[in-house]
Each structure stands twice: as C-alpha cells, then as structure tokens.
C-alpha cells in the first residue's frame, strides 16, 4: 500500500514532511493528579502538567537526502527520531510519512531471550511489517549476513553481546527501507563485522537509500548526511548543508568549553585506552630548531609531532586540524588524503610529524587537534588537542597570510 503513494513523482514529494511539530511529556503526577492526566489525554484538552521536549520543528526529507540530527544530550534528537519512526505521536503539528520507514532505535529491541535466533528473526521481521513471504524470501540472506554459524538455532540468551548485535543488524539489511532511522552510526560488532556494516551502509546510500540519524560525531554526519538539523533545547537552531551546520555547532561548543575549562597542555599523555581504541597518545609542537614549544613566530616553520596508538598493529590514519580558539576549523588534513603512512615506533605505537613550512597563521591563539582513525578512515575516536600561540608583529588583519604581491594599477577596459 505504501508503494502506491510513493510512486512516479517521488522526486518532488518529500518522504517525510513535518510541520510545526512539537512534543510534550507529561510530568509524573500522583494520586488524583494521575486521573486528571488520563482525563485530559482522553478528551485531548492537554491541560496536564508537562515538560516541553520539542517545539516548532519543520522538516522535509527527500529521497537520497540523508539528514543528520545534532545537538547536546536532551536536545530532543531521539524524541524527533521517535516521532518520525511513529513510536510516539507529536503533541502538536502534522507528520506526513510517504514511504516505508525502518526504525532502528535499538538493535534487537524485539528479541526474546528464550527463543532461538531464527525464531527471533521471524518475530522481529513481523514487527517491522514484513509478511510471511517477505521473511521466507530473506531469511537465508539474513542468516548469511549475521554469520553466527550454528548459534542461529540456539537460544538468544546464550548469545554473546556481539552475536546479538549481528543478528539485529542483519534483519535491517533485509528490510531495505526507503528511509532508515537510527540513533547512532551503525558500525557494530567486531572489526570484520563493522566493515560489513559499513559496506552495507555505503551500498544502501549509493542505491538511493535515505538515512536519518543522530550522532555526536560530526565527522560521520558530514560523511553520510547531506543536510543536518541542529536541535538546541528542543528547538531547531540551524538547518542546512551538513558541513555548515556541523561547523557552527562545533564553534558553539568550543566556545562553551573554552569558558568552562583550560585546554590541556601539550605534554599531557593520554592514559592508555582501556577499551582498545585508536587514539593519539601524545601530541606536541616543535619550532624550526626542533625544540619543544607552545609558541611559534609567524612565518617560521612548525612541526606537529605525535604518537598514535593502534590496538591491532594496523597502521592508523592520523588527521590533524588547525582551529581558531573558538573551534572554527581553518585547515585540516589527514595521512589518508596525502597517502602518508605513520611509521612504527614500537608495539602498537606509530609516530608522525607534520611539517608546516613558513606557518602562515597570523598572531593569535589557535588549537591543534589530532585524531587517530582506523585504517578504513571510518571510525573517528577522541581527539587530542594542544594550544598553539603564534607570536609576531604585523598589521595584517585576519587569520591567515595569503601569498600576494601589489602591482601597478591600470584603467579598466582599456
């Protein structure tokens, strides 16, 4: 039935259309207050004590135009996802959904521990609106994707958490929704399964699939989403191209952070990550004479040096960014883009040095931020930062020196 609505003119009509949507949650009440709440819910008068979780969201999502939701915890991202997923009804406004929605608010939400994996596939797929014949057609591909061997016929309660997640993701791959709603980037399980997830996601997106996801990773939002919506305290703050929105968001966040705490100094060593993630362990700056410094003079050479930790001995990808102290990015580059490979310094650790010739930033306070990533460059882990103060005397204005020359003038159109 969805197919009929979602027909020839799908390029024009949005998959999802929200108009002035808002959501209130009732505040817990006791005794008679409770009965009153029920009464106002029944009559739809809405005069109960409530908390405003979301207000004034207008949104249109078109085929192939993935949307990222960003915002701090409690900004209403999950509430908005749940509204589009149909799990909750908005208190005000209009929601129009013209396609098949696949919502993955939690992997394995419908699983029953006493059942075997195979039986759980049937139940979960039915919950997602698949029919018996749909499931029968897809069950072998689901089992292949999950790739958990004979465990598929064992009770879920004996599964490891990784197997649980594999099965949950595998069911989604069979659903192939027009729009996929998810609470985080779907890279789950062990290394090899994560690659499988990413590969599936890429093929889903390149086949015209649409994604709506909320994430705290601006890198992922930029990578997979075309548009982004920034929610702030339940209200949309900025909507537009994902690169613009994420930049503004980061700038806002950096500003807020900088007021709250001093930046880490350059020689702080990150404690070795307990959960075995790629990470930058050390980051420091050197001047043209290769001395440790935190101040450099503008126009002189600067070396950004660091050590990256790789949990599995594979060569990590390192990204280094130069930011204004409010968080506005000025320049960023990664070893992947330049096809450089950090050299091995010892077990699990890799070194790199980034040489900026005649550092062109004008005097001021800047941030150097470094990330380590897995070799696929997909998963971004916590960055390490150090401040960089550029000294110097100049009357130039702005951030950055641009190579230039003044020439004699001439008449226009002569």
């Amino acid at each position, binding site marked *: *039935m969805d197919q009929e609505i979602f027909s020839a003119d799908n390029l024009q009509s949005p998959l999802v259309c929200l108009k002035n949507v808002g959501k209130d*949650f*009732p505040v817990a009440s006791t005794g008679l207050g*409770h*009965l009153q*709440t*029920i009464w106002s*819910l*029944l009559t739809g008068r809405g005069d109960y004590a409530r908390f405003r979780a979301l207000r004034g969201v207008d949104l249109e999502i078109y085929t192939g135009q993935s949307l990222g939701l960003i915002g701090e915890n409690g900004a209403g991202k999950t509430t908005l996802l*749940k509204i589009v*997923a*149909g*799990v*909750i*009804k908005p208190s005000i406004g209009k929601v129009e959904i013209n396609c098949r*929605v696949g*919502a993955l*608010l*939690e992997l394995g*939400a*419908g699983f*029953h521990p*006493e*059942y075997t994996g195979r039986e759980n596939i*049937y*139940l979960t797929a*039915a*919950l*997602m*609106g*698949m*029919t*018996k014949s749909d499931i029968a057609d897809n069950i072998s591909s689901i089992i292949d994707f999950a790739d958990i061997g004979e465990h598929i016929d064992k009770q879920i309660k004996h599964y490891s958490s990784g197997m649980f997640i594999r099965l949950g993701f595998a069911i989604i791959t069979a659903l192939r929704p027009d729009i996929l709603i998810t609470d985080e980037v779907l890279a789950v399980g062990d290394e090899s399964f994560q690659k499988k997830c990413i590969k599936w996601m890429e093929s889903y997106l390149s086949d015209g699939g649409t994604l709506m996801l909320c994430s705290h990773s601006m890198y992922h939002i930029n990578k997979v989403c075309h548009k982004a919506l920034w929610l702030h305290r339940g209200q949309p703050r900025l909507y537009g191209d994902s690169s613009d929105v994420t930049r503004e968001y980061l700038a806002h966040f950096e500003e807020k952070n900088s007021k709250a705490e001093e930046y880490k100094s350059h020689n702080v060593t990150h404690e070795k990550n307990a959960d075995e993630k790629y990470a930058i362990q050390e980051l420091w700056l050197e001047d043209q004479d290769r001395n440790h410094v935190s101040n450099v003079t503008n126009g002189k050479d600067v070396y950004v040096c660091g050590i990256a930790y790789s949990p599995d001995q594979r060569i990590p990808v390192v990204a280094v960014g130069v930011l204004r102290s409010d968080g506005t990015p000025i320049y960023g580059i990664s070893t992947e883009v330049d096809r450089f490979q950090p050299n091995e310094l010892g077990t699990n650790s890799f070194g790199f040095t980034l040489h900026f010739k005649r550092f062109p930033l004008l005097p001021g306070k800047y941030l150097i931020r470094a990330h380590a990533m897995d070799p696929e460059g997909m998963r971004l882990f916590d960055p390490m930062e150090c401040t960089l103060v550029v000294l110097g005397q100049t009357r130039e204005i702005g951030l950055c020196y641009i190579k230039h020359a003044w020439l004699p003038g001439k008449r226009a159109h002569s």
Partner: protein
Amino acid sequence: MKVTELWRFRWLFLNLLIREIRNRYVGSLSGIFSIIFNPLALLAIYAFVFATILRIKFPALVEYNFTVFLALALWPWLAFQEGTQRGTLSIQSNGNLVKKVAFPHELLVYSAVTATYIVHLGGFLLVLLALVLFGSAINLLALPLVISILGVQFLFTLGLALALAAMQVLIKDTEQYLSPVFMIWFYATPILYPASLVPASMHQVIMLNPMAYFTGRIRDLLLYKNCQFGLVDAAEIAGTVVFFLLARLFFNRLSPHFEDFL
C-alpha cells in the same frame, strides 16, 4: 487505527500469539500446572468443600452432579479471569517493544487474551470429553453454540483487558486491585450456585453481570439442553459488541501516549 488496517498486521499478531503461548505454557512446569492442575485442583477443592463437607444439596440440582455443574462454568470463568489479568499486564510487560517499535499496541492485548482462551478452551474440551466418558449426560450437540457463546465472552474479555491495560500503563497499581475484584466477582457470579437460588429481588442485579449470562448460558446449553435463543441473548451480544468498541476507543485514545508513561 481502522480494523482494515489492522489486517496488515495479521502476521505479526500470529507471531505474538505463538510467542505468548510458548512463553507461558510450553516447556515450563508451571505452564503445564496452570493449564491442567490449577483448574482441576480448584474443581476438586470446591467439590470437596461444598458436596462432601457442607453437604449442600441445591434443590434445583437434584438430578445433576455438583462437580459436573461446577466444571461447566469454572473453565469459562478461569479463561475470563486469567485472560483479563494477562491482558492487563501485556502492554506494561512489553514496554521495551512499545518504546522502540511502531506497531498497533492493541495486538499485544489481543495476543495475551487469545493465548489464554486457546489454552483454556483446550482444557475445557478435554474436561467435557472426560465427563462424557465417565457417563455424564452432557449435550455435546450444543458444542458449536457453546463455542459461539464463549466467542462473545472472549470479546467481552478483550474489551475489559483493553481498558485495563491502558489504565495499567497510566496507573501502575491497577493490577493490584484486580485480585480482590475478581474474588468478589467470582462469588457474585452464579458459578458455585445456580442462578435460580438468587432471591428474586436481587435476580435482576445479578443478571446485569455479563459473566452471569455467559456461564449461565453455557450450562443451559450443555446441562439443561436448552438451545432456545431469545431477546436476552441478542441484547447481551449487542451489549458486548458495544462495550468492546467503546473499550477499544478508550485504549486507542490513550495508546499514543503509552511511550510517555512506560
């Protein structure tokens, strides 16, 4: 949601129903206990107390065995009571599903109640068979009509469970009041005694209770071989349908808000 839209979810309903039956009755000792031993034990203790100890002889029942008389109403009552209780808790106990997946919540109530009815109907049929084998004069020809009456009672149970399930989500202690209410309801319904013994002045009040109608009608058909249908039956059936529709309306009005309260 319209009933026609619900049809789209038939496969999901079937899955939920199978899940419900398997969870509760298959492979667990307590499940088997609740199907067979629990009703039989109840039947035995009531028969023992009323027929052996108290030696109660109902004048209306001289030609019938008290145990048979009781058994015919006990199973339908147990299906009703257990179905309502299970249905009441069905939304709350599947809270994780309601919070994470979009689907018609009423299906959870339907599957809980249906599972109980299927299981107790099975038990009821076995008991009828046993009674016939032991030589009781039971009118098995009326069985299709009995099942129709049970169907109406099932609809009544669904309605009550829908209303209570919605209440349970919003008011967490609803379920705690159910046990005493069912206890009173059980004794107020002519199950342990024939309706004809109720004083004439209270007869009207007792017959307002739909369960009195259902259990009474089932005994009528099986024991007294009275297969006449009349105006009362039509009114009870129509009343049940209206009740169910109102309860469903109540449930579906509140169901979009369940997520906020779970």
